[in-house]
């Protein structure tokens, strides 16, 4: 359990943000990477006959899924169980970790190989398993790299996008003793050599899930590398951890969601591997896990569900498109947020999943440009949700100084004589303010440290109007 002293999360955020925005090399690198993504994404969107109609249909499908969530989860579970899958329900991270650890103990497992699952980051699974004495191997190349660096993933879709090839080569040389060059192909081959035997020797394979199909009882997993396919083919036991909100009503819905996820997420027409799992090894099949455990995770998603204004934040398909277009994300990077889900959608949901007062600052770290809302393939109203978080945070814990300042402004603005007096005070004190601007003597230093107040006009509008009338008549 992390104990937070008042303001620690926001202080950490500001420190990291200041450091990262000052790192021009990092900003340039991220900007170049994301520009490449944008070009590919726009080409793919252009190939759609109507991307906007597709978005509306996707939004409506997810609305159906989330607003009938209980029915869909019941259908999903019964269809999965009919084919021999064991379905578990976890109200929170601790329960999920306990279920997973118990399965590993029951199977007398030593090594677990994982394919990418942001929910496993959310519940801090790796750390718990390693503490319990299990060996955990990340098979997704990006996750494998950040695991070697003892770092959190930088981006929900591209965990190691912040690293240049040279850095990865050095890392491999240091940790694996082997890296012939820094080309992506050679680096991938190094990881591949390390990984192949691990798939074969692992006792348990662990995956996340992109979509859960209620109609047919399937979990759909999307990936480029094939590591999920191997994780679900070779080990004797397979565990899948998934948030309850990943549900889709029908199998046919995937025909829309798979291309949209690929387009918005990575600028691809389709991701390399899209696999639908409907059970463990069935009679007559030559391979596949003997046991498949699916763990449905709540972890405060039902609280977000109970907020009808922001319920559509649960429509998120974790494509990462909003991160990629966000001017804040592009400049401070994923690690600055200090939490599993970063960028606009992370800023919207983290206050719900981890506490409003602790995480409200993320909703303030926004220019409200609306690029995220426009980019979202399922039309989540992200930037308005940030405003709603701000409103909710200040309603539940009003800032006295803010309230006082607004009240005083109201008094002065409603009294013409006071307003006149304030104007004259402004003219007199502005030169003084310029002298102390940004320093400890400046009462408005939080504002003026990075902003310039323009010179107050010599003649106010009222005075100009009054003089104009006089000269006219």
């Amino acid at each position: 359990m992390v104990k937070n002293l008042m303001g620690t999360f926001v202080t950490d955020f500001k420190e990291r943000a200041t450091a990262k925005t000052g790192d021009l090399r990092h900003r340039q690198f991220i900007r170049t990477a994301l520009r490449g993504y944008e070009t590919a994404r726009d080409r793919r969107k252009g190939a759609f006959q109507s991307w906007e109609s597709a978005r509306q249909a996707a939004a409506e499908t997810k609305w159906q899924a989330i607003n009938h969530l209980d029915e869909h989860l019941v259908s999903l579970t019964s269809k999965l169980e009919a084919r021999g899958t064991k379905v578990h329900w976890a109200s929170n991270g601790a329960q999920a970790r306990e279920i997973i650890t118990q399965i590993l103990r029951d199977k007398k497992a030593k090594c677990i190989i994982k394919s990418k699952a942001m929910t496993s980051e959310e519940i801090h699974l790796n750390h718990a398993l390693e503490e319990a004495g299990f060996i955990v191997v990340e098979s997704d190349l990006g996750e494998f790299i950040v695991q070697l660096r003892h770092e959190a993933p930088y981006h929900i879709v591209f965990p190691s996008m912040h690293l240049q090839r040279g850095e990865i080569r050095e890392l491999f040389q240091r940790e694996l003793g082997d890296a012939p060059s820094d080309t992506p192909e050679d680096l991938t081959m190094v990881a591949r050599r390390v990984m192949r035997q691990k798939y074969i020797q692992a006792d348990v394979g662990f995956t996340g899930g992109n979509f859960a199909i209620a109609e047919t009882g399937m979990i759909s997993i999307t990936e480029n590398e094939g590591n999920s396919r191997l994780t679900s083919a070779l080990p004797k036991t397979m565990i899948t951890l998934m948030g309850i909100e990943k549900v889709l009503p029908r199998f046919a819905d995937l025909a829309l969601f798979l291309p949209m996820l690929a387009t918005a997420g990575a600028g691809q027409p389709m991701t390399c591997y899209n696999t639908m799992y409907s059970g463990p090894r069935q009679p007559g099949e030559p391979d596949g896990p003997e046991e498949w455990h699916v763990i449905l995770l709540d972890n405060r998603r039902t609280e977000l569900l109970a907020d009808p204004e922001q319920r559509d934040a649960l429509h998120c398909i974790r494509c990462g498109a909003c991160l990629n277009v966000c001017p804040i994300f592009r400049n401070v990077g994923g690690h600055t947020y200090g939490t599993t889900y970063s960028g606009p959608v992370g800023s919207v949901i983290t206050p719900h999943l981890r506490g409003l007062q602790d995480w409200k600052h993320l909703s303030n770290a926004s220019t409200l440009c609306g690029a995220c809302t426009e980019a979202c393939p399922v039309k989540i109203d992200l930037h308005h949700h940030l405003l709603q978080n701000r409103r909710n945070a200040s309603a539940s814990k009003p800032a006295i100084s803010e309230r006082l300042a607004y009240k005083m402004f109201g008094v002065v603005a409603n009294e013409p004589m006071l307003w006149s007096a304030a104007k004259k005070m402004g003219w007199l004190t502005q030169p003084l303010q310029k002298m102390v601007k940004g320093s400890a003597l400046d009462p408005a230093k939080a504002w003026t440290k990075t902003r310039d107040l323009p010179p107050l006009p010599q003649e106010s509008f009222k005075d100009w109007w009054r003089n104009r009338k006089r000269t006219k008549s």
Partner: protein
Amino acid sequence: MSEREKILGRIREALQVKAPLPGSHGDAGDHLPSTAPPVAHARDWLPLVGTTPEEQFELFAKNCADLKADFQLLASRDELKAALAKIRDAEKWQTVASHDGELSNFASQSLGLPVLLTDKGYDVQALEKCDAGITECDALVAQTGGVAVTSRSTGGRALSVLPPHHVVVARREQLVADLPAAFAFL
């Protein structure tokens, strides 16, 4: 009460209050205006796929190339044998794996190399040493340049992904236009 009942209980309670429909500017709704599933018109919005088989093969070839897969349209079994032999020599294959299917048997046996068949179970280390996995497929999808396979139709889960090379042998008639068609088929 089990965790299942607790979670479902919280969901049902949360859903007692309605949420706005997408694109409705905040008006809460009970259900969508139309009874047809939203994706019923997906074909109208997904990328165009052409109407003739020629157009669709062309689209398939182009999408395949984007995904860095090598696609060859062959006229006869002799051409298939020659094409496979060419890859075998270029890649220096020594053993291959396959499953028991009419076309996959023809392909794997034409190479003159030891063939590991996975249908009745196999030794994983032996599969790991195979240079290529040769499988049939359920469909070729023009819209995406992808191949639809199931573990039932392609000798299990690992055959199409563990060996470093995956060769799919398909019949011309197996080409379908788009994902909705492939899904209907599956």
